[in-house]
């Protein structure tokens, strides 16, 4: 168990690709932390540098306060699960789990006892004699987890832990992982490109792009108040509506709708060009004209199961609205989408407009609801 402190970490690959760019990050002891970003954003490089599999070009990595930047991976006390699990096909499940202990020269009886214990804990009873090839994907992942945990590492790293599982198993494994992490309370960092996974699992998320962290926060913060347009367009399974607009007095005009200026954006001067962001989940659909609503014609209705995603054609701009079950309009209907109070975000030059002086108001910590992650 240890906190991770990363400061000024830079990684430049031979050939000049700058995968990490003077990156600072603190992960608290016992935290479940997600590195989220599109492919090529440096998230996997960051994870591998923490593990010691990549050498940092400059900057430091500290575990539990001790600088480990120059330590080889074997002496960092780190458990890691690879995307392909990396189980040795010629070894039985128990031998695979006991592998780190074998390298640490524990006695055979000791390491088999510990491996069996870890296997039982992860729900692998009775599979100890099998080969990895005879297990399902979910079981293989648990073997890899058990192997990473058996030597009681200080931190735990997961590279795309759910990407090799099919959709049904993935949900199961997600719940399993979250419970396991809470029970063990070991500092865990995982890499994912799937924002829903990050929102569901992590205590905190770092959204990365081009070797830098674009936003750091709880899932709720990142989902509700994306700090910039990159995060706004990346987070959310239904992408956020981002409409170009202009400030006019105490109103914002975007896509033909005149919305009241949010309190935090009072400082904006009239006539300033902004981007108005509002999530489809935070728009209320109605079939009667309302003040301050986006008015348009329904062009597409997509069923999401418990709800439907309606695309309104508002003055040539598509506006997405999530509409509850049973209230779906038909394509061609006239419709109005009213933003809920306090849910409209304004972006100037790609950054979220916040109240001057006042730093980000901490949001009440709230578990994201199922709808938000679906």
């Amino acid at each position, binding site marked *: 168990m240890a906190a991770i402190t990363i400061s000024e970490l830079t990684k430049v690959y031979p050939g000049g690709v700058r995968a990490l760019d003077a990156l600072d990050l603190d992960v608290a002891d016992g935290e479940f932390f997600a590195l989220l970003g599109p492919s090529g954003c440096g998230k996997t490089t960051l994870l591998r540098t923490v*593990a*010691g*599999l990549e050498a940092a070009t400059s900057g430091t990595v500290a575990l539990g306060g001790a600088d480990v930047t120059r330590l*080889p*991976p*074997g*002496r960092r006390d*780190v*458990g*890691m699960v*690879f*995307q*392909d*699990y*990396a*189980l*040795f*096909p*010629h*070894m039985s499940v128990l031998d695979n789990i006991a*592998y*780190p202990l074998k*390298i*640490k020269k524990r006695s055979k009886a000791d390491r088999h006892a510990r491996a069996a214990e870890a296997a039982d804990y992860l729900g692998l009873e009775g599979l100890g004699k099998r*080969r*990895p*090839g*005879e297990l399902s994907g979910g079981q*293989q992942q648990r073997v890899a987890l058990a*192997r990473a945990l058996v*030597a009681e590492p200080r931190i735990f790293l997961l590279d795309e832990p759910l990407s090799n599982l099919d959709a049904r198993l993935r949900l199961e494994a997600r719940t399993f992982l979250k419970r396991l992490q809470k029970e063990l309370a070991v500092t865990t960092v995982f890499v994912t490109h799937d924002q829903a996974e990050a929102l569901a699992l992590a205590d905190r998320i770092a959204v990365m792009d081009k070797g830098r962290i674009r936003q750091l926060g709880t899932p709720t913060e990142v989902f509700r108040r994306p700090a910039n347009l990159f995060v706004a367009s990346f987070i959310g399974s239904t992408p956020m509506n981002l409409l170009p607009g202009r400030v006019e007095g105490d109103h914002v005009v975007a896509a033909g709708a005149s919305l009241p200026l949010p309190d935090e954006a009072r400082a904006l001067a009239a006539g300033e060009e902004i981007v108005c962001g509002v999530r489809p989940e935070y728009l209320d659909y109605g079939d009667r004209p309302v003040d301050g609503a986006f008015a348009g014609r329904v062009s597409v209705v997509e069923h999401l199961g418990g709800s439907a995603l309606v695309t309104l054609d508002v003055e040539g701009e598509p506006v997405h609205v999530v509409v509850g079950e049973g209230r779906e309009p038909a394509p061609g209907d006239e419709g109005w989408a009213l933003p809920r109070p306090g849910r409209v975000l304004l972006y100037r030059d790609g950054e979220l407009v916040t109240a001057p002086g006042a730093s980000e108001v901490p949001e009440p910590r709230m578990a994201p609801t199922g709808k938000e992650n679906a």
Partner: protein
Amino acid sequence: MAPLTSPPSEAARRGGTAAASAGGDAAGLGRGRAAAFVAPALVLIAVFLVFPALWTLYLGTTDYRLTGIAASEPKFVGAHNYGDVLGDGDFHHSLWLTLQFVLGSAVIGQTLLGFAIAWVMRDRKGLVRRVVEALVLLAWILPGSVIAFLWIALLDRDGGTLNALLGTPGTAWLIDHPMACVIVFNVWHGTAFSMMLYGAALGNVPPSHLETARLAGASTLQTLRDAVLPRIRGHVLTSLLLISLWTFNDFTPFLITAGGPDHRSEIMSVYVYRTALGDGRLGFGAAISLVMILINLVIALVYLRALRERGRREPREAVTA
């Protein structure tokens, strides 16, 4: 054979009617024409392989000599030659030297050196790798007579390069340590094949397996034992099979030491050459040749059996790969 090469479904059924008229194969050639196509190759094989082999078998049962009365009227002597070969002290000595040669230069030397180079070069790119590979390959592709000359120049007693480098003028390497010279020479000559084969094999080991070992803190030897060797066992066996056979039959050492001094580097192929063509005892040489073929067969069978055993255990494991 023929039906296997065509798509099994519809095409084969359609081919059925055509084949019936043309002789029962997918290509619609008919037996006669198919045989005609194969015939030239079969004739070549018969003339250059089967006939000499049978001729050797026959010669082995005669007292045929290169010169003298027995050259014009060879007499049938039955298994007499074979008995002589197996009881011959020179033959035992030569077999022992060949064993040293195969184990020392092929199984240990080329395999270890080739693997070591492939391992060190595995994630190296650019100039260093290309230069090393080019040098090792060069030793492999140069004609035997050329490299023999190079090695004689290297090991020469007076003015040899090695003596100049080591500061040991007058050391007659080829006379004092003929077998060691031949073994080192063959390691140098043949390492390229192992290097290339293991280079390709190491590409098959998933990087995450090597990294798992690194994270556990495994040493290089432990990594090789746990993560690498189990993955490349098939490649190791194939490589060992091929280079054992090649080395067993290799004649190039003759160009350097000519089997001498005093038969001290007379490996099997050189021994056959000396008895059959040097001493002119063709019948006796033919008998040795047959024994050599049998030894080759035994080596091949041992490896093939090991490969097959591995293949039988593998299919289950292939699922994870």
